[in-house]
């Protein structure tokens, strides 16, 4: 902290000192110049601009009239926050201490209690199977009682309060048992809510009410089912460890690497092929195949240059599945590793995974995560790349790991290895549905084969480029999963264990969120527009039942998923996609053979910043409906039945929530401009700069893209623009040199572009960057943990952003006016005097 101004400078002194040379400052008190500069915070006295002639007198007049504000004044909000925190911390403790005194066993301090609680909670005693069964039985019994017993309003209020306090306390205890307890609380609260809804909130007297009520209830049952299955699926992630391979490499099996491609550009496929060549595996036991469905000359030539095999296919029946199946007939490897053409593997991919195969005969599939080094449309258009975990992360970070416990990990189409014999046993990759990958692993599981998941990313690729491509991909997945659910239902048929049935069902049911989400988005309108009582209960009762349901599921999900998905983002993703997957999934459920396969586009360029009107039509329609509903609600407040005010308020709140989520979805539709063709990947490793004058500088890369590298130096001015030099990167003990030219300098950050690399140099570059074994290890270095309220605030901000962007794109001329107003406002802020901040 710097020493602040300690004495008030008198008015006369200020005037006089403006004309005399200020004396030299000694070390403790700031010099006169500094004191005066503090009084003119918005003006740079050392570099005056012409308009300062106006600004300085204005500021002097202001200073005469207004006292400087003290700096140390703590904002009201902070003080309130501190007060609340101290109360919160005290409450359970105060109660506990009083209880302790009453029972004459004094409890010393909160840390002791917490420690005792933690030791109790994480004791090995809880791992004993009998203890497990007993506690599950007791838990189930308590849950059953608390769900079905009808309470009066007061009792319900008390129940809710007690449950809440208990959850707040348990929440602070780390460890698995505490998570289980939170799950029990959440299941209780949600089941109680649902029971109550069935029991007392359907209006049997009115046909319309009943129909709409059942519709909403159906959606709620779906949400409840998915919630429970989700807890089941993710409560115990397995965190499987890789196995060692035998020392003798002659015992290692042969592997074919398939890289299927259809219409992707060559520059997307090159790094994948080079990285596949860099995989550490005996050269005589690995074969790389480019499977080209598009029969392109450039690919054939490239395959020959690079020294990899090339297969082409004239007809494209069954798309990727057909491509893979044809390649299987022409190759002989014992194992098949499949990479999408833009998924770049690391060199350790095979050595990490294959050990598991050799340990377990029945293992047929190993899946590794799909890590994206480029932002998906949500991250790019909302600007939260790196700050908020993306949609994929929940699945690859937690869900698959949870599946792994139940041996229900399913194949995801890329970054995986499949054993050839079991695959041939089921007749190759499944072609009946459009999600051929999940269907294939379902069939393998039915035959009794096992699967495994390794949660460390061993490959990274491109995310979908634009929102429309993203939606297209999700539609395909949703349609495929619904098709499988209909034709090869995991709950029926033989060969699967209970855990597998539940996990697969949850994976498929997850994609049926289209219709329920749409129901949630339009439900409040039933009351506001049609005056239909879809929930036949008073507002207070509804609050007492709904609030714990929402709060407990938020807390528990935040606890379980916090590292991989921030609170309230699931609603944003679902809202954005609900309309699009509603129809395909419904059709697929009833007529699974209808529907066509559309390929996900990869490697395109978003050329212009624009608002995707086509994609956002459904959002706009829903926003329009909700706004009408909102207006109707306001009208009811003013002119309607005074008894209904509470209900109207609650419904309006619900509508606001829906509007916020729709706003966030629209924010994603405003596509941000993509400036460069090649993606900038944040990747840090040491690099040596060899200058022309013989000096070597040690530096670190900050990011890498296909044509160049971003380097962070220790000081400014070490390199000049246009300078030519060489850089060397280490890969193990070998060092590779690349000629570069400096393309831009910005402070300590320097951008260099590679100069005409030969193919060998390109290969070396991939080996040194993407193919490093530790390339993706610290991808979550700067990730913060989930904070539910903070996340809610952020989502609300995104919602508001959505409306602002809509407005900006809607009326360009008014946009210009708004900009002018902004400009004038900024100018006035610059010109007009400002109160300086000093501390006493």
């Amino acid at each position: 902290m710097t020493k602040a101004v300690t004495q008030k400078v008198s008015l006369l002194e200020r005037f006089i000192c403006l004309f005399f040379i200020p004396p030299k400052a000694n070390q403790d008190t700031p010099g006169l110049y500094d004191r005066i500069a503090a009084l003119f915070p918005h003006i740079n006295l050392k570099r005056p601009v012409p308009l300062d002639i106006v600004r300085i007198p204005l500021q002097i007049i202001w200073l005469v009239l207004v006292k400087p504000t003290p700096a140390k004044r703590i904002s009201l909000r902070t003080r309130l926050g501190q007060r609340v925190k101290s109360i919160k911390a005290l409450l359970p403790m105060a109660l506990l201490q009083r209880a302790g005194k009453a029972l004459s066993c004094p409890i010393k301090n909160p840390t002791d209690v917490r420690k005792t609680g933690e030791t109790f909670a994480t004791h090995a005693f809880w791992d004993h199977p009998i203890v497990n069964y007993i506690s599950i039985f007791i838990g189930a019994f308590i849950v059953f009682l608390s769900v079905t017993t009808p309470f009066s309003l007061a009792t319900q209020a008390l129940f809710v309060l007690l449950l809440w306090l208990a959850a707040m306390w348990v929440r602070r205890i780390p460890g698995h048992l505490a998570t289980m307890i939170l799950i029990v609380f959440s299941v209780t609260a949600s089941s109680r809510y649902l029971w109550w809804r069935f029991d007392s909130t359907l209006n049997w007297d009115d046909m319309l009410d009943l129909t709409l009520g059942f519709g909403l209830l159906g959606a709620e049952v779906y949400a409840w089912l998915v919630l429970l299955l989700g807890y089941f699926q993710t409560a115990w992630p397995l965190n499987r460890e890789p196995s060692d391979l035998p020392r003798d490499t002659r015992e290692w099996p042969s592997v074919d690497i398939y890289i299927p491609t259809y219409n992707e550009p060559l520059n997307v496929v090159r790094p994948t092929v080079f990285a596949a060549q860099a995989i550490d595996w005996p050269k005589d036991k690995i074969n790389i195949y480019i499977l080209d469905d598009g029969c392109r000359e450039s690919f054939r030539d490239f395959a020959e240059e690079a020294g990899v095999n090339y297969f082409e296919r004239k007809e494209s029946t069954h798309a990727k599945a057909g491509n893979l199946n044809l390649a299987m007939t022409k190759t002989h490897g014992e194992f098949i590793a499949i990479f999408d053409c833009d998924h770049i593997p690391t060199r350790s991919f095979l050595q990490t995974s294959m050990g598991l195969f050799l340990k377990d005969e029945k293992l047929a599939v190993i899946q590794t995560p799909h890590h994206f080094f480029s932002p998906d449309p949500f991250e790019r258009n909302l600007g939260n790349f790196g700050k908020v975990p993306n949609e994929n992360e929940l699945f690859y970070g937690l869900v698959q790991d949870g599946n792994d416990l139940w041996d229900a990990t399913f194949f995801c189409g890329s970054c995986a290895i499949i054993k050839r014999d079991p695959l041939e046993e089921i007749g190759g990759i499944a072609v009946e549905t459009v999600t051929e990958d999940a269907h294939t692993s379902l069939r393998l599981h039915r035959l009794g084969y096992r699967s495994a998941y390794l949660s460390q990313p061993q490959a990274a690729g491109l995310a979908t480029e634009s929102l429309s491509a993203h939606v297209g991909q999700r539609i395909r997945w949703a349609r495929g999963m619904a098709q499988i659910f209909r034709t090869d239902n995991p709950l029926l048929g033989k060969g699967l264990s209970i855990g597998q049935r539940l996990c697969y069902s949850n994976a498929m049911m997850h994609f049926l969120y289209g219709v329920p989400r749409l129901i949630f988005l339009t439900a409040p309108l039933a009351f506001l527009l049609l005056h239909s009582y879809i929930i036949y209960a008073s507002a207070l009762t509804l609050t007492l039942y709904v609030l714990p349901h929402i709060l407990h599921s938020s807390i528990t999900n935040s606890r379980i998923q916090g590292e991989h998905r921030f609170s309230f983002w699931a609603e944003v993703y679902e809202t954005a996609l609900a309309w699009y997957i509603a129809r395909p999934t419904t059709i697929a459920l009833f007529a699974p053979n209808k529907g066509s396969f559309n390929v996900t586009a990869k490697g395109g360029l978003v050329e212009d910043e624009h608002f995707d009107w086509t994609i956002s039509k459904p959002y706009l329609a829903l926003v329009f409906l909700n706004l009408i509903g909102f207006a109707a609600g306001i009208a009811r407040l003013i002119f309607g039945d005074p008894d209904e005010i509470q209900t109207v308020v609650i419904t309006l709140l619900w509508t606001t929530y829906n509007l916020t989520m729709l706003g966030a979805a629209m924010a994603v539709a405003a596509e941000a401009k993509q400036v460069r063709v090649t993606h900038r990947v944040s990747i840090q490793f040491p690099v040596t700069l060899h200058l022309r004058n013989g000096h070597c500088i040690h530096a670190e890369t900050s990011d890498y893209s296909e044509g160049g590298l971003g380097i962070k130096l220790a000081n400014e001015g070490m390199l000049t623009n246009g300078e030519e030099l060489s850089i060397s990167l280490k890969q193990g003990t070998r060092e590779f040199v690349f000629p570069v030219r400096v393309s831009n300098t910005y402070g300590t950050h320097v951008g260099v572009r590679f100069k005409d690399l030969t193919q060998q140099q390109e290969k070396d570059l991939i080996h040194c960057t993407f193919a490093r074994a530790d390339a993706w290890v610290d991808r979550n270095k700067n990730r913060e943990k989930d904070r539910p309220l903070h996340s809610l605030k952020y989502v609300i901000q995104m919602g508001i952003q959505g409306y602002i962007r809509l407005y900006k794109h809607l009326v360009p001329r008014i946009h210009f006016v708004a900009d002018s107003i902004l400009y004038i406002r900024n100018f006035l802020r610059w010109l007009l005097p400002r109160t300086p901040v000093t501390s006493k």
Partner: protein
Amino acid sequence: MRLVAVRSIKGGSGATTTAAHLAVALKAEGLPVLLIDLCSSNMLRLHFGMNWVDQSGLAVQIEKNLPWYEASFRSEFGIDFIPHGYTPGEQQGLILNTLFAAQPYWLKNSLEQLDLAPDCWVVIDCPSNQTQIGSIASAIADHSLLVITADPACYASMQNYPLEAGNHHYLVNRFNPLMAVEKDFYDVLQADYQQHIAPLSIHRDESIRESLAYKQTVFSCAPHSQAAHDYTTLATWLRGHLPAGVSDD
């Protein structure tokens, strides 16, 4: 006390520079360091700004039968070193040789007599031509570094000097990956000597020569150079690389 002996297979490979910078790197990690120059060329002191005309040093003390440790100096940056010293006439170069031949345990005993801190590192710069001094020093040392360069001449010399048993490592110095010969020979050395080669190399960096021109080390002249980083890595590696039977300080 940990003892490091630094010598080169072939003269001019840069053992003196390596010893000087290793000492500075260890000092920068907060360890007490003592640097001793056993080379008659008396070059080590020049990295620490010692006056040209000052001829004092170890050999001078021994010749005059004075306590050898009194010829110690502290550089501007806090490095303690004992230069070899310059004795005119034909005695130059032979004093230490004769001493080591007559009393092979002189070095060990003398170091034990000094009141060194338990975590002190003693770095000894051994001559390349008087191999007896080098072998004695490396025999009693906890770590022995043989400085080599990745080129055909050095590789040929290495064939005549089989690596003795013990905690010896080859350290590749002046490595310039831009030159094909160096890259290739580095790979050959890795293949031939595997774990006997230190897992890092010191890059060829003009900063080293330039800092000697200033009579300083790269740590003060060019702290962000690759050479400085390499020497720091060398120090870290040595600290972590415990010889058999020695516990961590």
